[in-house]
């Protein structure tokens, strides 16, 4: 049988520094073996275990979209020992990847509906995957609204792409920063407040919200106030994780494992978990 603990090799194709403080870097990885590229099929919202042999392994959401063949993208915030090592990677280096793991945003269910994507901070990774996917299948979906907030303008991920999206007339993009700074012409205010101001229509709408716990905590009541039913609001959860395949017992919330039951859950599902309620 195949050994699920053994990662496949991938090569660092491109490294992009996302912010002036260099705490956020994006890595595009290319497949080393053609067979791996063929068998690796994924959906927006799934994640991988990213290894540097001898240093360790950590899970990250996939920031590329399945509609962009030939590479996988990960954006990594430099925080712990593994992410620190990942930041030292250079083009051409070999890394280990296991995946795709977990479930995904239910884009099939969203078909024919309007989609509201709400993101905060560097959790925008799998949301980028989702937005790129939806834009690629644009005719299958109704209105697409994106609300994305960060502390200051430097911290937006994928700045060039955001500029491109801004020009589109089939996507309504709302960028916001916490506090006004000179030269900023976008919105100002925290994501929950901005969401309330924009007040996206609930009609035939689905919401995907992903960001730091504090943002989620204050955005959910706003969504409830706007009358979005819990069953139509999705989020992606995180916990410390090791194996990624439901064995090591680490990432559970109640009887759900983030790795195999999630990471994507509807607010309705989350409401039923004692540890989250």
């Amino acid at each position, binding site marked *: *049988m*195949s*050994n*699920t*603990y*053994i*990662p496949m*090799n991938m090569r660092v194709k491109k490294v992009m520094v996302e912010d002036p403080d260099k705490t956020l870097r994006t890595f595009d990885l290319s497949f080393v073996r053609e067979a791996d590229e063929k068998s690796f099929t994924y959906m927006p919202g799934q994640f991988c275990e990213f290894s540097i*042999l*001898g*240093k*360790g*392994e950590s899970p990250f959401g996939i920031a590329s979209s399945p509609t962009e063949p030939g590479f996988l993208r990960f954006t990594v915030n430099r*925080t*712990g*020992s593994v*992410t620190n090592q990942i930041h030292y990677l250079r083009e051409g280096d070999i890394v*280990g990847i296991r995946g795709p793991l977990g479930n995904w945003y239910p884009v099939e269910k969203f078909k024919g509906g309007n989609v509201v994507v709400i993101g905060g901070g560097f959790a925008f990774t799998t949301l980028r995957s989702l937005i790129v996917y939806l834009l690629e299948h644009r005719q299958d979906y109704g209105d697409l609204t994106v609300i994305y907030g960060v502390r200051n303008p430097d911290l937006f991920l994928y700045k060039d792409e955001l500029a491109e999206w801004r020009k589109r007339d089939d996507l309504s993009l709302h960028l916001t920063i916490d506090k006004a700074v000179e030269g900023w012409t976008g919105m100002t205010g925290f994501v929950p407040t901005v969401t309330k101001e924009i007040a996206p229509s609930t009609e035939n709408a689905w919401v995907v919200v992903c960001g730091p*716990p504090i943002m989620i905590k204050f955005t959910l009541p706003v969504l409830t106030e706007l009358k979005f039913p819990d069953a139509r609001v999705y989020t992606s959860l*995180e*916990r*410390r994780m*090791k*194996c990624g*395949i*439901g*064995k*090591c*017992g*680490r990432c*559970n*919330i*109640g*009887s759900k494992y983030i790795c*195999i*039951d999630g990471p994507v859950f509807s607010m309705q599902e989350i409401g039923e978990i*004692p*540890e989250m309620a």
Partner: protein
Amino acid sequence: MVRLDKDRFGDFIGSLTGDYEVYATVTVDGKSSFREIESADEIDSSCLVTDRTPKEIFFPHSEVLFEFDEDGVREVKRKGKPIAVWGLRGCDVKSLALLDKVFGSARQMPDNEMFQDPYWKEKYDGSLIFSIACNEPRSTCFCNWFGGGPHRKEGSDVFVVDIGDAYLMEPVSEKGRAFVDKMTGTEEASASDKKKAEELASTAKGMMQEAPPLEGLKETLKGVFDDEIWEEMSAKCVNCGACAFVCSTCHCFDVQDEGKGGKGKRIRIWDSCMFPIFTREASGHNPRHLSKDRFRQRVMHKYSYFADNYGEMLCTGCGRCVVACPVGVDIREVIKDVMSYQGKGAR
């Protein structure tokens, strides 16, 4: 059912070691565990529930997942004969079956190899289990709370009863049947042998304390999740993790890389939800930063969450944690306290 006279037991183990890697109860420095043996002389047949859990036969305390060097990654394949275990108790047989639910597959995707643990399967699948009846259960035994019993045979390949001068062997599985049919040196068990085994079973059963009513435990636990009962019950717990390390069903593990200069191995090591670092994230945030959160997690996992997912409790009543706890936390009392709790209710 066949009878193996004890004076032929040495020959039996001798022939078993020809075809299998044989594990049995061994006592070293006063601590009993299941270890690989070469001959029957090494076996300590006096121990009932071993101090160390036999899960380590199939899920060792530390295990290499793969090795790596500049040429890449190398899988470490197990060599040698299939595993036979002599003398597992009914509770531990059940523990292995519960662990197999976790390691053997994923409940959502039973056939997907991505969720099958190769290291568990290469040892557990194809193993031969001889379980032995408990004629004298201990005061800490509570297997009967979860459908077990001192003479429980389910899940075993060959069920063995020690009737004094001989072992009675009853095939339980197909594999066990095939093995017993090929055994030499045995004779058909007589009516009086069987009667003796029945008497022992009845006496042992009579020694067990009565199980309290446990109906609805899974839901009751959820109902008291936010209640102050957890502070009271966990007050003396020092989060040492001894309960998890002696437990036959605790299966949480950590993964670490060991090595230098691009050469080394990735290993997994037993871990416990009792430790704060278990869930502490790189940012410093810890969803279970209080001792009582972790105490509750372990109880909830065993008697509520696992039951949600698999329809069974992740506890077989072996009593090891009751014996091992340095501050005298008795999981039976915890369960009873929850079942009889008449507090404020949830939130």
